[in-house]
Every structure is written in structure tokens, then in C-alpha cells.
């Protein structure tokens, strides 16, 4: 197994664990953490391709800068929404929150 394949399998494991968390977790904050795991898995893949695969050199680094920026914005906004949800319904259980009304 080459280093590239090791990194790709590691990234795949991270992504699948994150996807499992998104699908199976009930708490909105835990779902957000799982989304962070998936974003990181994509970053690992991008860096692995930039390092080991021909023709993808520096562009992956630029993409990762943008991914991290958007992830930071996403976490800030999503946690604001979670706090709002908690204020309205006194719960962050996603199974209980099935309406967009107050």
C-alpha cells in the first residue's frame, strides 16, 4: 500500500464515520461535529492528491483554504441556529424538531 492509498483510505474512513454521525445522531451539536469530520476527510484527500498525484499541485492548497473558511462560517451560523432552536423548543433533539414554525 502506497502512501497515497493509505491517505485515501484514511480519508474515506473519516468521511464514512462523519456520515454515520450525521445520519445516526440525535443531538444537533453532534451532527455539526460529524459534518466537521466529513469536511476534514475531504481536506485530507485534497492534500493527498496535491502531494502524490501529478497535475494537481498547488490548487488543492487554495481549495483547502476556502474549505476551512467556509467551514468556520458554517459552524458560526449553524451554532447560532442551534441556540435559536434551543431557545424556541428547549431541545436540540433533531427527532423532536419537525416544524419550521415557532
Amino acid at each position, binding site marked *: 500500500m502506497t502512501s497515497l492509498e493509505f491517505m485515501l483510505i484514511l480519508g474515506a474512513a473519516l468521511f464514512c464515520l462523519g456520515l454515520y454521525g450525521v445520519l445516526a445522531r*440525535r443531538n444537533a451539536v453532534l451532527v455539526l461535529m460529524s459534518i466537521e469530520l466529513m469536511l476534514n476527510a475531504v481536506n485530507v484527500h485534497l492534500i493527498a492528491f496535491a502531494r502524490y498525484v501529478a497535475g494537481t499541485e498547488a490548487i488543492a492548497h487554495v481549495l483547502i483554504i476556502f474549505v476551512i473558511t467556509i467551514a468556520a462560517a458554517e459552524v458560526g451560523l449553524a451554532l447560532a441556529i442551534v441556540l435559536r432552536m434551543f431557545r424556541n423548543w428547549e*431541545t*436540540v*433533539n433533531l427527532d423532536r424538531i419537525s416544524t419550521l414554525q415557532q
Partner: protein
Amino acid sequence: MIAAAILGAVGIITVAGAVGVVATRSVVYAAVFLLLSLVGVAGLFLMMLAEFIALAQILIYGGAITIVLLFAIMLTRAPEQAHQQDNQQRPLAAMACFGLFILLTATALSTPWRTRDASSDPMAEFTALSELLFSDFLIPFEIASLVLLVALIGAVVLTRSGREGA
């Protein structure tokens, strides 16, 4: 040989942290496991000679995002927190994710990658990154700052106390 051992250790730390995030019942422990996993990912970046990305990873994910998540956990403490954190679609989700993992692994192993010799200059990627960021990607770079500003204002508006009619 030593590099391979370090790589394996960092990989195990990363995956163990991720397993902790999706397996633990305590939300606070999940945040700590997430921090472990994110620092592990920063280690992977370092092993692939992406020092700047590794630093940004530790600063933004390890510092900012984990702290914000911990704040959200503390502010949303409900009595139900001690109960089961997984919903009833767990077996199906586990099967689907395992299937996806098998598929991705098989793809990674069977694709004939056009690999290249890794450059020995540790600053090469960094220089190329900065040149690209301030030439071809200048406009997206500026728009990213706008996105952050909008997210900041949006977060303030959303969390403001709703008493004044908001």
C-alpha cells in the same frame, strides 16, 4: 521506516478520535474526541509537507471551532442530554456508511494513479499557494472575507434576544 510508523500512529489517533465522536454518549467527550481527531488531521497534513495548512488547521479547527462547539454544548444543556444520543435509523446508517467505505477503499486501491515524485523543496507548495491566492484566486479570496462578514452578522442577528420584536 520511522516515517511509516509515525504516519500509522497519527492515522490511528485520527480515526480513533473520529470513532469517539460518533460513539460516545457524552456531548462534551465528543467535542474532546473531535479535537483529538482534528489535531491528528493536522499531523497528517504535516506528514504530507503542507505546513501552512497544518497550522491553519490547528488554529481554526483546534482553537476556534472546538471552543465555539463547547460553548454551544454548554448553552444547550437540556435534561434529556443523559439519554441515548442515537436515533432508530442507526443500523441502516451503519450499513450504508460501511458500504460506502468499502466502495471508496476499493476505488482507491484499484485506480491506477498517475503519481509524481514528491518535490524535495519544503517551501515549494507554500510559495505556489501564496502566488495563486493573490493572482488567480484574488476575487474568491476577497469574496471569502465577505462570506465571513455575512456569517458574523447572521450569527449575531440569529442569537439576539427576540424581545425587541425580532
